[in-house]
């Protein structure tokens, strides 16, 4: 009998009798074609054996070393309290809060998540999360098309994470690339038939962009302006809503989610109130119950697939509720000052590293562009440097493939690690 089913043979017997069939096979009388024999899967392991295998496989990964990789996922401190909350069975083992009377925990935490995102982005309304950063960007592309009633075609900065751009394209949206000029986007040639102009700040290369310029260019073309922002950066950088952005989206991973080989993370989306009906995903709103008591409920459901079906604004159903909760708890723990401190610590350390690399004779790719905690540094043979770093128990930055390494520095990195990094790079 399978591991997590209670039934004894006697239970099964009694239940088959009640149903009026005599064997379990009878319950599948209508199934055609049937399977002959057993599934060809490795034999069942006990919990202990399975977890021992997990441990053995984990040892085949290189983890636990200082990481200089970023490029969309950041090695940030995750407070212990986050795990304690998101592992509570009532959060972990519930589903979409269709029954609000017994789901206020999930609902209120979504409301808080939306509030946090709105506060950070300076935009009125946010959703309960989408799958990840790339999907937030792609959904934003589709959203701009619906809002402008244009064909799905968007202008995206070359500084947009290439993986985000790929997902836009997978979703069959045409992409026009806006080039960089000294690391910052040049908006001179925004086509006038695009539905949206996408700028990422800090960009994939770590550069702080001019979102106002993007907004102006977008609006001049009759398009919407979409800003793609690391939420931690919004503790110190101007809210995109205050810079003319119509939509702000991004990856919430830096807010308390472990790297975990790329997921689960959570995408966030926020926009102006007037655009709420084209915002995909779930939205939680405030209301009252029969007794007038304040409570929360999923609202504006008419936008969603289960109500509107083929005319829904997206097909999204399951989202990233639990990781969004992690972001909510993380942000509560940090507060505005904590977020700012994370940003400032990372920035100070990154600039220290950049300076030391400079002193060691290396050149930044965009020496004049403003950056926070990520930057591209010219290196003829990134792979070799990364090998050297690994031999010295460090995980190097991303090989940009064109003679540069993208280096990210978080609040976790110590001066000793930064100095060691410089030392290895210098000698590699």
């Amino acid at each position, binding site marked *: 009998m399978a591991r997590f089913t209670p039934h004894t043979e006697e239970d099964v017997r009694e239940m088959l009798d009640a149903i009026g069939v005599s064997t379990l096979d009878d319950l599948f009388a209508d199934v055609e074609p049937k399977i002959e024999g057993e599934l060809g*899967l490795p034999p069942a392991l006990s919990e202990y054996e399975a977890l021992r295998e997990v441990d053995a496989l984990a040892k085949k990964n290189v983890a636990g070393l200082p990481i200089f990789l970023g490029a969309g996922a950041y090695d940030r401190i995750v407070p212990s309290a986050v795990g304690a909350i998101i592992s509570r069975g009532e959060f972990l083992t519930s589903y979409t809060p269709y029954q609000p009377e017994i789901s206020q925990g999930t609902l209120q935490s979504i409301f808080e998540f939306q509030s946090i995102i709105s506060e950070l982005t300076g935009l009125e309304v946010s959703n309960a999360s989408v799958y990840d950063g790339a999907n937030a960007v792609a959904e934003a592309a589709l959203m701009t098309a619906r809002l402008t009633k244009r064909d799905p075609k968007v202008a995206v900065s070359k500084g947009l994470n290439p993986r985000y751009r790929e997902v836009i394209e997978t979703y069959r949206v045409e992409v026009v690339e806006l080039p960089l000029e000294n690391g910052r986007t040049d908006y001179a040639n925004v086509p006038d038939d695009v539905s949206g102009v996408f700028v990422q700040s800090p960009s994939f290369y770590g550069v702080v962009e001019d979102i106002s310029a993007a907004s102006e260019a977008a609006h001049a073309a009759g398009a919407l302006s979409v800003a793609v922002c690391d939420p931690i950066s919004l503790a110190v950088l101007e809210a995109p809503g205050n810079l003319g952005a119509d939509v702000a989206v991004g990856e919430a991973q830096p807010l308390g989610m472990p790297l975990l080989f790329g997921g689960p993370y959570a995408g966030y989306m926020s926009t102006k109130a007037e655009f*709420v009906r084209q915002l995909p995903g779930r939205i939680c709103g405030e209301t009252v119950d029969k007794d007038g008591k304040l409570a929360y409920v999923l609202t504006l459901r008419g936008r969603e697939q289960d109500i509107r079906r083929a005319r829904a604004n997206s097909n999204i159903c399951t989202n990233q509720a639990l990781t969004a909760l992690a972001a909510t708890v993380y942000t509560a723990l940090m507060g505005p000052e904590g977020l700012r401190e994370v940003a400032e610590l990372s920035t100070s350390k990154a600039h220290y590293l950049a300076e030391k690399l400079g002193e060691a004779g290396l050149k930044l790719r965009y020496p004049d562009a403003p950056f926070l905690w990520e930057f591209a540094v010219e290196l003829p043979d990134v792979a070799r440097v990364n090998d050297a770093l690994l031999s010295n128990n460090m995980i190097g930055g991303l090989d940009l493939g064109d003679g540069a390494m993208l280096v990210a520095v978080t609040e976790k990195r110590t*001066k000793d690690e930064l100095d060691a990094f410089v030392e290895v790079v210098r000698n590699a």
Partner: protein
Amino acid sequence: MLNNLIRDRGREGRRGFTLPKPDTETKNLNDIIPKSALRKETPNLAEVDEPTVIRHYTNLSRQNQGIDTTFYPLGSCTMKHNPRANEVAAAVPGFAGLHPLQPEAQGQGALRVMYELQGFLAEVSGLPAVSLQPLAGAQGELTSILMVKKFFEAAGDDTRTTVLVPSTAHGTNPATASMADFKSKEIGLDEHGCVDVDELRSMVDASTAALMITNPNTCGVFERNIAEIAEVLHEVGAFLYMDGANMNANMGRFQPAAAGVDIMHYNLHKTFSTPHGGGGPGSGAIACVERLAPFRPDPVVGKDGDKYAFVAPEKTIGRVTTFHGNFGVLLKAWNYIKMHGPELRDVTDMAVLNANYVRAKLRGTYRIPYDELCKHEVVAQPAEGKKALDIAKGLIDHGYHPPTIYFPLVVKEAMLIEPTESESKETLDDFIGAMLELAETSPEELEAAPTHAPTRRLDETRAARNLKARW
């Protein structure tokens, strides 16, 4: 006091977390970032201490019901027990600390998990090619339909504009078809609640790209003509896509490939217990026939000798996620399958046994629109004049999470009950007792329900009219 927002529990200057002290010179942002790009106003976020955070969210959690607290027969969602071993697995530092962009050689353990899981999902479905990228069922659908689209494009076939969707289909199916820029056409049912094969025959033509079938369908009934349906589609060069949300009724009993299914998605958060997390994260991994394999998202995991590596399928539709899918969810599903092996069939058997038992016991008091063998779930309707909503709210007062209601749309006042294999006969008997009692409960009492929950019924109209979606 309990319903305060976290923001209302704070005070300026409170802190819930301490960071390491700076060990390099502190940069003044004004010196390095253009002033116009710097934030002027501090965001209005909670300023609270750790004790307050823990207490606030702990108390919020206590306003929820989950599988851990009660029977949760939410149809089409497979709210089975979530083994705690899954959580332990995903917390192992060697996985939790792995950056998705570390070179493949540094992630051999993770890649092997993915490679093996691809194999497991291929075996369960009989479909040889898998992608683990889709992040939920709906994205698995979209990925599949985009692959179908790209297949026809690659074949130079530009006539395929339509996707057929049964009237019982989950809302994500037609929504997916639209997102992939197909017209979706609804197809009717036969007397068993299954796809009407005659109608299908009359609808398919050279414009048909695919049929999206759910099997067992959303009435919990096995689509007994599925092989024939596949043939009908294949005859016109179209694909049979299967929504695999209900694989908990198929494992070890029915391999979609054997019936001619070309491509399907799984919901790992349902069938493989990963868990549901209050609405996600999930995984919508897909499996397909060789013909469609080259179109899978980039990349998939391959093996070369004893090394695992990412490989790009030849004619890939591109990527559908930033990195490699919801890896943590994949790891949990892998762990679940490792703990079951071929005994996954027992899971299916017990899930189907439980649903049929509920059917047998409700029959007479509730209407069972398709009162024949069901699979892992059963649709019931309250007696004429009673509302599914009222029964649902009454169940809350009995301590249960209600079934899915008003779905599938084709059944009036539908209550879609999916007990799952994790529940004991005693639990089912108690639940059935409550259902029978509710059938006798006065309309006034039912309309007043719930009265034993954290809130009474909510004013949903008000929420939509005066939208307040943030503090």
